[in-house]
């Protein structure tokens, strides 16, 4: 197929359809690959569950990126979700209750903070989020009597639909829940981004003034996205807590937020699949870098990030989708 043919085909079908096909194909391949990896290499099941959990949180970053805003404090919602699990689990160890609870609390905090920060743009938006996350980080660290400070809290044993599972089964259960939620939120975000809400959100990035003159409130549009992203952050945090079974204030530190933004770009902001590609790549690079050179893993991660930004700004998604496109899929 010559390039001009390709363009012609795209115009007829509308540019969306091949992209959709690529996305779906990649999502299915990705999910299968994850399951296979988790099955073949047992300890990777843990790493991949964490990757999926972070991917869900990064979906939230992706939403805000669509509006051209970078939250450098988003991990506070992750921390809220995680600490919700840690605090509530001793009384109510049910995963199916803890997850919605964590989501709800994170969304509530997102609403409160969102009402304030959606009035700001660009560096102010980023830095206010950073400041508020540092306040939450300090609270978690300072309220030693409640949170055990930097020691953190061990998450009590969990039940799944009333069942207390064996370690091996529980690991699979967590992996399955994370994968299901990842797919669910991925679809949700996809639909949302294609809706007027999502398209208006993207409009904030290019022509915010126009939104107002269309009778829309840009702040409200951003607030909705912010609350949704906080909710997903809470879910991601809850999953991280349930998987690693230990929470510390580190979750809310600004470098953790930086990591989430890192993952978003690494994966590529072009697709709802990006965060999961990014999170998987990030965790695998980190784990293998740490195994190869335990005291210079940061340098390797930094190097990978630089290479991606300079040479493949579309991220992993950009690389994969252009490859698939090249093959005419």
């Amino acid at each position: 197929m010559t390039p001009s043919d390709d363009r012609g085909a795209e115009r007829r079908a509308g540019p969306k359809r091949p992209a959709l096909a690529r996305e779906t194909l990649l999502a299915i391949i990705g999910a299968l690959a994850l399951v296979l990896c988790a099955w073949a290499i047992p300890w990777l099941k843990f790493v991949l569950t964490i990757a999926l959990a972070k991917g869900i949180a990064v979906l939230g970053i992706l939403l805000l990126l669509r509006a051209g805003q970078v939250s450098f404090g988003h991990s506070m919602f992750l921390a809220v979700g995680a600490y919700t699990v840690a605090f509530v689990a001793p009384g109510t160890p049910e995963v199916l209750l803890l997850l919605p609870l964590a989501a709800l609390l994170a969304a509530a905090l997102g609403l409160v903070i969102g009402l304030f920060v959606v009035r700001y743009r660009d560096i102010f938006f980023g830095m206010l989020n950073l400041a508020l996350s540092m306040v939450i980080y300090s609270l978690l660290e300072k309220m030693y009597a409640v949170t055990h400070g930097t020691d953190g809290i061990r998450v009590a044993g969990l039940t799944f639909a009333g069942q207390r599972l064996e370690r091996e089964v529980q690991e699979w259960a967590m992996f399955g829940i994370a994968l299901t939620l990842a797919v669910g939120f991925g679809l949700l975000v996809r639909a949302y981004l294609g809706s007027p809400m999502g398209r208006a959100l993207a409009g904030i990035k290019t022509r915010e003034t126009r939104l107002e003159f269309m009778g829309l409130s840009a702040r409200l549009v951003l607030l909705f996205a912010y609350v949704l992203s906080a909710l997903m952050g809470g879910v991601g945090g809850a999953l991280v807590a349930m998987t690693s079974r230990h929470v510390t204030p580190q979750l809310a530190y600004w470098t953790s937020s930086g990591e989430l933004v890192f993952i978003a770009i690494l994966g590529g902001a072009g697709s709802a699949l990006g965060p999961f590609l990014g999170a998987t790549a990030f965790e695998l690079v980190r784990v293998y870098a740490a195994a190869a050179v335990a005291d210079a893993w940061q340098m390797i991660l930094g190097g990978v990030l630089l290479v991606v930004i300079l040479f493949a700004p579309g991220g992993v998604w950009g690389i994969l989708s252009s490859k698939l496109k090249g093959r005419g899929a």
Partner: protein
Amino acid sequence: MSTPPVTAPLLSAKGLRLAFGGVKAADGIDLDVMPGEFLAIIGPNGAGKTTFINMSTGYLRPQAGSIEFDGQPILGLKPRAIVRRGIGRSFQLPQLFTEHTVLENAALAVASRLGPWSPLTPLLRPAWREEAMDLLERFGLAQVAESRADTLNEGARKLADIAMAVALQPRLLLMDEPTSGVAAAEKMQIVETLVRVLRQSGVTAVFVEHDMDVVARFADRVAVWSQGRIAALGPPAQVLADPVVQRDVIGISTHA
């Protein structure tokens, strides 16, 4: 409420004043816009023409004076509230969502008129898509519907910008230099398209314009702006023939 008399103005501005530092952008503006008319605003750069549009749409707030739309005061309302009451506007620099397609731009405007929506409804659902396509066709933009807005030429961008305002079905449309930056060859064609669509929709229009040919041909009335004041107001033939206007306004603006 009984039917208002035919002579009641659609937009009525009284005693608008606004100064930026020492510059008086509005120094006692009184203007009535009558339903159904096409009112052109002319005047040199910096005379306060855009400021008037900005004040009428809630983007700037005058320091004194009042604005009524359809008999209701609108001063102090936010732009989006004023839009919802039926005042649309277009921009000197087209305000398009540059990373969206033209169709999406139009559909978003259609959808925002018909909102609120569920976050799961696709923007290009058939009903919205059809209305948006229809609109683009009327503006002669159907060919570029699938192109990204930042790939259009200036004339098409201007039209798309106005199309988005029209999609909101305003009763009054304020247009800030709809033909500026457009190649001379295209200009008349664009204005003709525009006027046809607006007449079809029964929209009252106020437009800032530098091209006196356009003004003479399409405006019902002309308001001449000078240093924050209205220097002259009346039918084009009469106003444009005024020697003072010719010297002070047209002489300058034809060079702008």
